[in-house]
């Protein structure tokens, strides 16, 4: 004869052991609490305040007095309304980040200040090369050895006319810098430039030499030395 839930048993049961599936060990009185995960998700989503009470022991009331079991709530469901990424409609630049990871200082600065670049990704297209791809790529282009992390910027406006045959962008070689401060200043200069691009053609015609940031971008700020 099965024992009644409210018989001689103590009013509170010990916690369910970790790893033991709770579905089979649920008393009828608590069946209403242990529902399918979907139902729990719905409950969590619909009643955030009420759901927080689920983990606490229920107040003793009738048959549910012995229902002091712990219910493991599923992980908080992700917000379904996370916006899907839409590539910018009319990007001016295409930015590639190539990093084989040999220069730990520059790599760390780049990673810690990635927000500077991420801020641009609404207007520009950003491509990250994995470490493996970067190593392969640099291996094919030996002139880039020792210069990565490289931020390659392609000016789509310039490339639209002449392709890659003439001036079409620039590389920021962070790998040649040795101190975090130099790398950070260079990164900030870069972000400022890409965020506020001047007319490159005008700037280029003013400066006959191959451009430096000052001549190229007209930033009026000393670059790192």
């Amino acid at each position: 004869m099965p024992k009644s839930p409210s018989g001689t048993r103590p009013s509170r049961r010990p916690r369910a052991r970790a790893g033991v599936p709770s579905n089979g060990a649920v008393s009828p009185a608590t069946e209403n609490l242990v529902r399918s995960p979907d139902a729990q998700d719905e409950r969590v989503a619909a009643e955030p305040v009420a759901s927080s009470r689920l983990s606490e022991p229920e107040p003793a009331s009738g048959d549910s007095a012995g229902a002091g079991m712990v219910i493991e709530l599923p992980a908080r469901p992700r917000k379904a309304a996370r916006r899907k990424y839409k590539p910018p409609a009319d990007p001016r630049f295409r930015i590639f980040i190539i990093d084989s990871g040999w220069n730990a200082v520059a790599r760390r600065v780049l990673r810690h200040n990635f927000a500077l670049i991420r801020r641009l990704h609404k207007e520009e297209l950003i491509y990250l090369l994995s470490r493996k791809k970067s190593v392969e790529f640099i291996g094919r282009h030996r002139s880039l050895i020792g210069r990565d992390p490289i931020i390659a910027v392609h000016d789509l406006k310039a490339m639209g006319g002449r392709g890659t045959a003439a001036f079409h962008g620039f590389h920021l070689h962070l790998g040649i810098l040795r101190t975090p401060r130099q790398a950070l200043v260079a990164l900030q200069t870069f972000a400022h430039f890409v965020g506020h691009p001047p007319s490159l053609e005008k700037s280029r015609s003013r400066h006959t030499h191959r451009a430096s940031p000052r001549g190229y971008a007209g930033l009026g700020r000393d670059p790192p030395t």
Partner: protein
Amino acid sequence: MLDRFGEAISVVLGALALAYLVYEIDRRKRRLRDLFHVLGSEEADISGELLSMVESGELQPYSREARA
């Protein structure tokens, strides 16, 4: 005699200072060009390969969702 010697020293020191100035400006200019390297026809193959990686779909634009 001493006057002429002093003049010569001044001229030499001035020339050295000027040479150092020119050298330093040139060094910084070279370093700057190396840091912000402008892409021209010489780098067409590098840019072309990046371009082909994008066109072939090997590289996808960065997005937070893809990163997560």
